[in-house]
Each structure stands twice: as structure tokens, then as C-alpha cells.
């Protein structure tokens, strides 16, 4: 097994194929591909599998479960529920309360604020916001980073100097302050832009702001990888048969970076979930009345001493989701890069 784990991505199946052959597997030798090997390693990592299942489940709950739950409970996430507030304190979990006009309704996790909104539904809809923003911003940031990093590492010289200096300048900024300032000003104007109604208010602007601040780490990592890859023989061979620079980058360098990019993106989603929650907590993220985990936390600040549930639920939602993405990322790292070069 040791040789199999050590095999390089260049000829990933060779060692495994040799092992099969030695066991006298009969018939033809089928070499295991890079992805097959990675999947075999990933399967053994129970924590990573559980995290992956959790992420899929959360996605289903947020995009399919939320409207269903709204239908069954009979009220929406932004509806004001009269009975949701008891003596100026939001009610606790599992309360049957008066919904006005003689109806009674169930607040599964209690209400989230002094307007008596349903905490459970707001958490589900908040999951949607978190996932959409974090994943889209990661795609945006990582693609920018990969493009810049590849170009810088491949061409070197003047281009590399420009990109590296640019990263250095960006990293000298007080980034959180800048993100807040951007979200409060430019983001505020973009809030009503929904991309022809696909997204709810504020998603596009949050994605842009967060994406703008998540490109430099991937850029640095990819640049370092490309710097060593471009000296390899296969690049020389590709150039010799007459490939253009663009084709070398796209077809010969990028496939080697897929592992790094997947691992890094997963971990970036985790940071971006925290980032989104921080911006919404500070009131420059998702505009009210729509729910986001950050909004819920900032509302909880007012009365968490009287009703600790309102603080506990959004915090745990954030914790479990980021934890799942972090564990998934670690598992993917072990699976895709067993030699530990990341």
C-alpha cells in the first residue's frame, strides 16, 4: 500500500497496476486512475464522508426543504407572528402560538426576534444565503486567483513581478475594514440587482465583495505550483510539438492543479461563510427583512441573556457548516494529495 500512496500524479496508476499484476489478477492489467485512487483514499476517511453527506443534506434542506417547511407550517420566514413574542422576549423552541386571525401555528425553534419571526424557517433560508454567497464568491475568487497565479507563474519575469506586487499591495490593506466599506457603499447600490430574479436581494453584491477578497491566497498557491510545473519535461515536450502558450496552460498545466484547486476551494467556502456572517452581523450584508445567519446573530445580541436559544441556533448552524467544509477540505487534501505537498 505504501508504494501506491506514494505514486506521483504523473503516472498515478502505475504502482497500483503493478500490485494487481503481482497478485496474478488474470487477464489484462487495469491501472487505477488518479481519480479512482483518490476516491479509494477518500472513502476510508469517515469524518470526511460524514461531512460531505452533511453538506449535501444542508443543500437539500436549504433549497428544497425550506419552501416545503414553509408550506407545512403555514407561515413564511419574514412573517410577523403575534404570539411569537411573550412579554418582550421571543418565545423558546417548540411553542404553539397565536398567529393572528384565530389561527394557531407552531414555532419549531421558537422565534428569532421581537417581531416573532420563525427562527427555524429563518435558519433554513439563511442556509440558502450562506451557501449561495460562499460558494459563488469562492468560484469567483478562486477563478481570478487561478488565472492570475497561472499567468504569473508561467510567464515569470515582468508579468510575475506585476502580479506578485499587486498581491502584496492588496495584502497590506486592512481587508475587513475595506470589505465593510465596500459592502456599505458600492454593495448597498448593487443590493437591488438580482440577476433577472435568480437570486434574492443582496446576494450578488455580497458575492462580488467577498469574491474580491478571496483571490490572493489561491493566486499565491497556484503561482508556486506553476513555477515548479513549468520546468517539467512534459511542458517542454508539449512546446516541442508546437503547442501555444495558452494551450499548454489550459491542457497541460491546469489538469495538474485540479487537486489543489478543489481542496483550496472547499476550505475557502468555510472562510467565506464566516465572512458573510460577519458582514451581515455588522449590518452591511444581506438587507433585512431577509434572513441570514449573520443577521440572526446580530438580532440575538439584544436579548441573548433573556433567551439564549436565539444566539445558540445560528451560531451552531455556522459552526456545523464551516466544520463540515473544513473536514471535507482536509479529507480531500489527504485523498487528492497523499504526498502532502499542499
Amino acid at each position: 500500500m505504501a508504494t501506491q500512496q506514494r505514486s506521483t500524479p504523473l503516472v498515478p496508476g502505475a504502482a497500483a497496476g503493478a500490485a494487481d499484476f503481482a497478485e496474478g489478477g488474470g487477464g489484462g492489467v487495469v491501472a487505477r486512475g488518479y481519480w479512482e485512487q483518490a476516491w479509494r483514499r477518500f472513502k476510508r476517511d469517515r469524518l470526511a464522508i460524514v461531512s460531505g453527506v452533511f453538506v449535501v443534506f444542508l443543500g437539500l434542506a436549504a433549497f428544497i426543504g425550506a419552501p416545503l417547511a414553509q408550506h407545512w407550517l403555514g407561515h413564511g420566514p419574514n412573517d410577523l407572528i403575534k404570539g411569537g413574542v411573550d412579554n418582550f422576549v421571543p418565545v423558546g423552541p417548540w411553542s404553539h402560538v397565536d398567529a393572528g386571525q384565530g389561527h394557531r401555528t407552531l414555532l419549531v425553534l421558537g422565534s428569532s426576534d421581537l417581531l416573532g419571526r420563525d427562527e427555524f424557517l429563518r435558519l433554513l433560508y439563511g442556509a440558502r444565503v450562506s451557501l449561495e454567497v460562499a460558494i459563488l464568491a469562492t468560484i469567483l475568487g478562486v477563478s481570478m486567483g487561478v488565472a492570475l497565479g497561472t499567468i504569473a507563474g508561467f510567464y515569470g519575469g515582468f508579468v510575475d513581478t506585476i502580479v506578485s506586487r499587486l498581491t502584496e499591495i492588496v495584502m497590506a490593506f486592512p481587508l475587513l475594514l475595506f470589505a465593510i466599506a465596500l459592502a456599505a457603499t458600492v454593495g448597498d447600490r448593487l443590493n437591488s440587482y438580482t440577476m433577472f430574479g435568480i437570486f434574492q436581494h443582496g446576494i450578488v453584491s455580497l458575492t462580488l465583495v467577498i469574491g474580491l477578497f478571496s483571490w490572493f491566497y489561491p493566486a499565491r498557491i497556484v503561482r508556486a505550483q506553476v513555477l515548479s510545473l513549468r520546468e517539467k519535461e512534459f511542458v517542454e515536450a508539449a512546446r516541442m510539438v508546437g503547442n501555444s502558450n495558452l494551450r499548454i496552460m489550459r491542457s497541460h498545466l491546469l489538469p495538474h492543479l485540479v487537486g489543489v484547486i478543489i481542496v483550496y476551494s472547499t476550505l475557502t467556502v468555510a472562510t467565506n461563510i464566516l465572512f458573510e456572517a460577519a458582514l451581515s452581523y455588522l449590518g452591511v450584508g444581506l438587507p433585512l427583512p431577509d434572513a441570514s445567519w449573520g443577521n440572526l446573530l446580530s438580532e440575538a445580541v439584544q436579548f441573548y441573556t433573556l433567551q439564549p436559544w436565539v444566539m445558540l441556533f445560528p451560531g451552531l448552524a455556522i459552526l456545523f457548516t464551516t466544520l463540515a467544509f473544513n473536514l471535507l477540505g482536509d479529507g480531500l487534501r489527504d485523498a487528492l494529495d497523499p504526498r502532502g505537498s499542499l
Partner: protein
Amino acid sequence: MIRYIFRRLLWAIVLFLAVTIVTYVIFYLIPVDPARLAAGRNPTPQEVKNVAHYLGTDKPVYYQYGLFLKRLVIDHSLGYSFANRQSVNSAIFAAAPVTISLVLGGAILWMFIALPVGIYSALHPRSRLDRVAMASVLVGISAHPVWIGLMLSYIFGFRLELFPIQGYCNLKGSIAGQSCGGPIDWLYHMVLPWLTFAVLYAAFYVRMIRTNVMETLNEDYVRTARAKGASEIRVMVQHVIRNAMLPVVTMLGMDIAIALGGAVLTETVFGLPGLGKLAITGISTFDLPIIVGTVVFASVMVISFNLLVDILYAWVDPRIRLA
């Protein structure tokens, strides 16, 4: 060496100019007119114009930026707030001690946690304590800082009534408008913010120290030292920890510098009137001089800590300055 320092210094100045120019340009592009905000309720167009002239916002952006540089270099002044004409220097000097005590105290606390745990974990990988440490690290980096703060203040502040959950007390005796002051009140009020701040960073540092020490343990010079008969303590202290700490110290410098620019989340949770709070207030009122002031302070911190680390490194390692 002098040449190297000179080059780094020049680059630091370029960085500073780049950061401030970008700040100015971004806030110039904002469609909000600060003069209108500062002119009071229902101003006539003439009043807005007068206010704009008074604040200097009727001039083109490069003129405003030039004026900012001139004031900074010649008068060492960051200008006056648009909102209340308070001097930005005094606003920053009032807020800086709060942030500095939060960040430095937090940094000391997190290093006190991270150093022993990280080194122990590296020396005993897969031991019970290592597993517990690694699990808490994952929780520490996955939990939201705001939530950590709220949980700590609920449990230790509200339930156990051990520490206050809000406010700041001046270290050097009470100042006007404050009921508390002096070192004991200061310490008492800072415990929970420090803890919040430390939980997050301790997680990162435990992980980093563990990886570094484990990597250094595999180095050839560690084996050589052992082969030469050095005692285990000497090998650890002189060879392993010394080398493993180099990158940690770099990160520490960077993290402290960045946090000094505004530990926004911790400051808002505990109601500390620090730089982060100042910046947030500035942003919500489009108070350009306050925003630029905090950005300048924060980036000067980052740039000078960077410069310091670079120079220290070049001094330790000649390969860097000759490259």
C-alpha cells in the same frame, strides 16, 4: 544590508501611497455627497455648496489627495472629521489604546495557550491530548468569532457573573464620563474580550506550531545533533523549537499588525470603543477623514511590521538580502 533596507523602505512608501490612493478613489466614487450629510436637515443648494467648500470636497480628487498628503507630511495631521469637525488624530489616539490592549493582551494569551499545546501535540502525535487539541482546533477555526464572544459572555458574564460583558475601562485611572478606571478595572473588563480573541487565534497557532515542529523534527541537523550526543532538552530547545518558531514569529507579527487595524468583531460584541468601532462609525456616516485615518493607521501598522520582519529576517539569514 543598508542597500536592502533602503530598497524595502522605498517599497514600504510605495505600498503606503497605493493604499491611501485606493481609499481616496473608492470613496470619491461613492454617490453620496458628504457635504449634504454634514449640512444639516433640509439644506438649500447654496448651503450645501458652502459646506462642500468648507470641507474641501468641491475640489477634484487629486487635489484633495494632495492636500491630505501635504497635511500628513508637514503638519502630521490626518485632518478633521466631516461629521463633527473633531481632529482625526485625537479620535485615533483615543481609540488606539483600546485596540492595542485588546490585541496585545489577546496575543499573549493565545501564545500561552498555543505554544505548550502545539509543541506537546507535535511530540506526541495521535496521543489522547493531541486528538483533543486537534478537535478543539477545528471547532475554534469553524466557530464564528461573534458567537464565541456571545457564548463566553453568556456563560462567564451573565450566568456565572464572573466578568462584565460590556465596556472598557481606562488603564491609567478614570477619565471624564467613565465610572471606572485603573489597572484592576481594566483587567477585569478585558478578560472576556481577550479570551474571545485568543480562542480563534490559538486554534490557528496550535495547528501551525504543531506542523512546524513536526517538520523540523525530521531535519538532518536534528539527527546530527542527536548523533553528537546532545541531550534531548538541548536538541528541542536549541535546534527544533528555535527553527520551528521562525515562521511562527513572522505570522505573529502579521496577525498582530492586521488585528491592530481593527479587531472589529470583538470590539462590537463587547462594546469596546476601539479603532474597529471608530472605522465602522466612520463608514456608516461617510466620514471620509475618519475612514482614511483608520485605514492609514492600520496599513502603517501592517507595512511597518512587515518591514521589521523583513529586516530581521535579512539580518538572520544572509541569503535573503543577497538575492
